[in-house]
């Protein structure tokens, strides 16, 4: 992350302001903006681990989507047990029910990530072709195993009682769940930023992204660092998966794969390997999807591609190119 390059950040503001000019009423604009930010935050949670893993070890894990689905399924299993807590009318009880579900998602996705790294990815370091193929195969297998364990049907995942519905801010109706998503996303980003920029571990990770061999020659084991980052990234994907599943109010085995396209676009936009770029990219994608969805619904699904093309025309290596990519 280069500290002094504020242009991409300004781009978010420019996009929001441009939309402000086109969207006829201010409350609608506010609703759309919050919705876009919420979507962006959830995408960021899912994408950040993947981009960091790529930056650190040059591994692009096409099976990252599997962690998203598995996290969501794990949380769904817990929430089915805690139905009472979810339906209770008090916020505290809702959060008490959600906490173990989120913890389960993080734990299961992290564990799967650890196994995945050992079994699937370790043998194919440095060979991109095999990496893509093997992780694709891993995705197929994990998706099918989800069917085996949780059954082939979609599982409905209702939001907790006090976090459904909207609040009015002025004239703008803002869904409560979206505000929660923004808060969780900000917390994740802040935590990640602190770890990366204010701890020794983060220093090593950033140095590893910059120049792996140099860090290794100074006596640090980048491999071990990488396993940690991989597990953390998988866990984050699981967390993002739960948030996304609750947003959709259902869990399917294919949801991870569906998200992968957006995640890849975000990573490409951000500059492959950069966490800051991934954050900006995710917010841009989220905002763009919501604004265009409102202004020109026909174009909505193509808005991501459009955004990617525009950004790559401006900066061919992404917003914040990580040095190795």
């Amino acid at each position: 992350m280069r500290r002094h390059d504020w242009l991409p950040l300004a781009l978010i503001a420019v996009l929001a302001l441009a939309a402000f000019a086109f969207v006829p009423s201010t409350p609608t604009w506010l609703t759309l903006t919050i919705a876009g930010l919420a979507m962006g935050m959830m995408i960021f949670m899912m994408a950040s681990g993947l981009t960091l893993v790529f930056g650190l070890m040059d591994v692009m894990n096409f099976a990252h989507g599997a962690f998203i689905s598995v996290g969501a399924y794990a949380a769904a299993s817990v929430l089915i047990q805690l139905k009472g807590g979810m339906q209770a009318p008090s916020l505290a009880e809702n959060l008490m029910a959600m906490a173990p579900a989120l913890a389960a998602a993080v734990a299961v996705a992290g564990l799967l990530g650890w196994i995945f790294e050992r079994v699937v990815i370790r043998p194919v370091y440095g060979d991109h072709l095999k990496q893509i193929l093997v992780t694709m195969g891993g995705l197929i297998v994990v998706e099918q195993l989800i069917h085996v364990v949780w059954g082939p049907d979609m599982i409905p995942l209702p939001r907790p009682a006090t976090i459904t519905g909207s609040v009015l801010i002025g004239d703008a109706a803002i869904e409560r769940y979206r505000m929660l998503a923004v808060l969780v996303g900000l917390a994740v980003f802040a935590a990640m930023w602190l770890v990366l920029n204010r701890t020794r571990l983060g220093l090593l990770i950033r140095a590893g992204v910059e120049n792996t061999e140099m860090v290794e020659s100074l006596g640090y084991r980048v491999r071990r660092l990488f396993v940690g980052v991989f597990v953390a990234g998988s866990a984050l994907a699981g967390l993002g998966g739960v948030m996304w599943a609750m947003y959709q109010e259902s869990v399917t085995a294919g949801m991870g794969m569906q998200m992968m396209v957006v995640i890849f676009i975000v990573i490409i936009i951000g500059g492959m390997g950069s966490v800051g770029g991934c954050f900006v990219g995710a917010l841009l994608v989220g905002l763009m999807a919501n604004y265009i969805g409102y202004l020109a619904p026909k174009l909505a699904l193509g808005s991501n591609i459009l955004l990617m093309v525009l950004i790559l025309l401006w900066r061919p290596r992404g917003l914040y190119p990580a040095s190795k990519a």
Partner: protein
Amino acid sequence: MSRILSGDLPRSRVLAAVLVLIALGLLAAPFLFPGARSLNVAAKVAVFVLLVASYDLLLGYTGIVSFAHTMFFGIGGYGIGIAAARLGPAWGNLALGFLASLALTAAVALVIGLLSLRVRAVFFAMITLAVASFFQILASQLSDFTGGEDGLNFKLPELLQSRLACYYLVLAAAAALFLVLLRIVNSPFGRVLQSIRENEFRCEALGYRTVFYRTAANCLGALFATVAGALYAIWLRYTGPEATLSFAIMIDLLLMVVIGGMGTLYGAVIGATLFVVAQNYLQDLMKLASDAATGIPLLPNLLHPDRWLLWLGVLFVVCVYWFPSGIVGRLRR
């Protein structure tokens, strides 16, 4: 014989026998295995042999991972479908649709290739995935034109009304194009592609412009996929997002190439045949096994007919690790 196969002989008795068996089976399929279902399987095998072979040109020979191959397959299908459904079932219209789809394919493949083949394999894979998903959305959104999610049913010209004539047209075209592909990979051009796969840097140092060759391979592979899509649409008399564009088909393609054997076109024949037959008949077998395993926890689920992809996925991963040249590579040893 050696001339027809461009000097690229099977180099293994078992492989040769299996290939002859498949070829004869396909040739005599309407008489050997009567019934609509088995003829469908045979036609699908023929089309997918061509499709997988064209994908192998990219993945196995050049070392490019593209996730946009089904997009080109779909473009071919929609070219025929839109022409036949919107303009009417005449030969001229079919030809028009077919040529238009070839032109579109060439343009799209060229642009994608020039923009993203300069960079690394991972980048190309990601970009193609994004573009392919965009096309899928496009096909379902432009429903006035493409029939949306439902796709298009259409009629064919008089001559192709008969299933038998249609089958032999598809088979003949697929076989001829397969031989053309065999010619391409065994030409000097094909050797350059293989050298790019083995060592791009060295190839560049020898004076070959690798970007040019990779882009050419990308376009060629895409064009063959488009023809395969057109053949498939002609056979099905239908085209739609599920049948031609979906990501599931892309995954099937990957499985076929890798299990059959990357970097040899005979792998495409073996892989496609094995996969399509498994897709249609393995499930029956698994049902038997699953019923036999009732009462044991989890095992019936693992053997459930819908989980056939699980086992092929495991086979795929095993192949990538231990048998990178797939079944054909194994047989040739």
